[in-house]
């Protein structure tokens, strides 16, 4: 096994630090929101994890297309890494959102477009893992995985548009002033610092975890090849 490259070691270290700083900024530095109180602090990590969750799914769909075009197994490992890390982050987003929603909306869950789309997206990627699990041939597994991430990546936004027809109570914090009644709020500059730092922190953590997952994928691949060699 190759030792961790220096950049990755630095990135590991940086991930821990930025997570600590982001936690400090969110829990201590940022002022308490006037109406919602302390629970609003969940928002910084909620958006941070949601951002990398979505980023990962877009990356996965692109990697899927690249795999189908080039048939290079590296893109497949890239895609798996992105989906796996994103599925985890997206799950955290949903849980954090529910924690916020309980005091703000007085319910853990509503069938709002964003919440519903998030749940369906999460289910799409769970189905993705079940699909991969059911296929033994690694080449076919990669092909089917790529096709499915592509389908999922296109279907999720359309789902969002369709459910939006029904109605929404999810606040739009950035770029809209009309949502105050639904639990929206405008950010002070300290809040913005905490907000943007959380985005940055989770991006760093995301890259770090992706990198580790890709290395793990390479190792899995090697193990599979060695197993084949032994059995022959």
């Amino acid at each position, binding site marked *: 096994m190759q030792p961790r490259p220096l950049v990755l070691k630095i990135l590991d270290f940086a991930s821990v630090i930025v997570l600590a700083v982001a936690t400090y900024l969110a829990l201590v530095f940022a002022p308490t929101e006037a109406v919602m109180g302390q629970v609003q602090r969940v928002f910084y990590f909620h958006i941070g994890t949601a951002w990398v969750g979505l980023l990962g799914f877009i990356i996965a769909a692109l990697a899927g297309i690249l795999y189908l075009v080039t048939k290079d197994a590296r893109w497949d490992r890239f895609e798996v890494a992105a989906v796996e890390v994103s599925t985890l982050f997206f799950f955290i987003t949903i849980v954090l959102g529910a924690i916020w929603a309980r005091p703000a909306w007085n319910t853990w869950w509503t069938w709002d477009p964003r919440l519903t789309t998030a749940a*369906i997206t999460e289910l799409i990627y769970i189905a993705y893992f079940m699909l991969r699990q059911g296929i033994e041939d690694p080449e076919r597994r990669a092909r*089917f995985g790529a096709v499915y991430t592509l*389908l999922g990546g296109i279907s999720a936004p359309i789902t969002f548009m369709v459910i939006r027809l029904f109605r929404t109570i999810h606040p739009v914090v950035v770029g809209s002033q009309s949502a105050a009644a639904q639990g929206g709020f405008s950010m002070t500059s300290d809040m913005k610092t905490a907000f943007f730092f959380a985005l940055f922190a989770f991006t760093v953590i995301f890259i770090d975890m992706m990198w580790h997952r890709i290395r793990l994928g390479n190792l899995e691949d090697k193990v599979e090849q060695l197993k084949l060699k032994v059995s022959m």
Partner: protein
Amino acid sequence: MTNIKSIKAEGGLTEEAHPSFFKATLAIIQKDLSAEFRSFELISAMLVFSLLVIIIFNFALELDVKVRQSVTSGVLWTTFAFAGTLGLNRSMSVEKDRGCMDGLLLAPVDRSVIYFGKAISNLIFMLVVEAVVLPVYSLLYNVNLFRLDLIGVILLGSIGYAAVGTLLSTMSAQTRTREVLLPILLFPVVMPVLLASVKASNGLLTGAEFSEVLTPLNLLIVYDVIFIAIAFMVFDHVVEE
């Protein structure tokens, strides 16, 4: 092997080495339909299943007059979706089990022909089932579902469902878990179709204004076009050996 023969006999493969796209697609549809209308295996299973689902809904939701008004479209689309997976699974596993798929792949035609052929025959099976379920539902619950606009929505929804379903059932048929996997793969991806169809049908049945129905209808058309195009592009990768 009889399937290949029937393609030859009916699709005119013998007349020319490379039949036109249209002709070849038609041959596959013809093969599926003649196989189906000989045994009625698939359609009868879908039909009986649909009726059972409606009966279950009748008791689960206690479909009295008041409830019915708001849930009719939901009940219909759930029934179609469940019966649809049954049909899709069967239609693909028949190809897989008897090695017909290999025969189809050997045919000197573009792979997308196979996709369109299978998708259209799956669509026809769905439509046949829907054509029976609608009057039965109308009869049982004393509502008139025979409206051109509603039939249009059902047609659009079924097209999207069959387009994605055919692609995914081709995939799931090649996995270890097979039948179990199809609904898990299909339902989250086909969600926009079901939601938009329910929204549009509900609007029509409750007599909403047309502008309200127009948006889900547009999204339905957009979904159909996008996913037919994608399935057309990626089907090659799904049947590659």
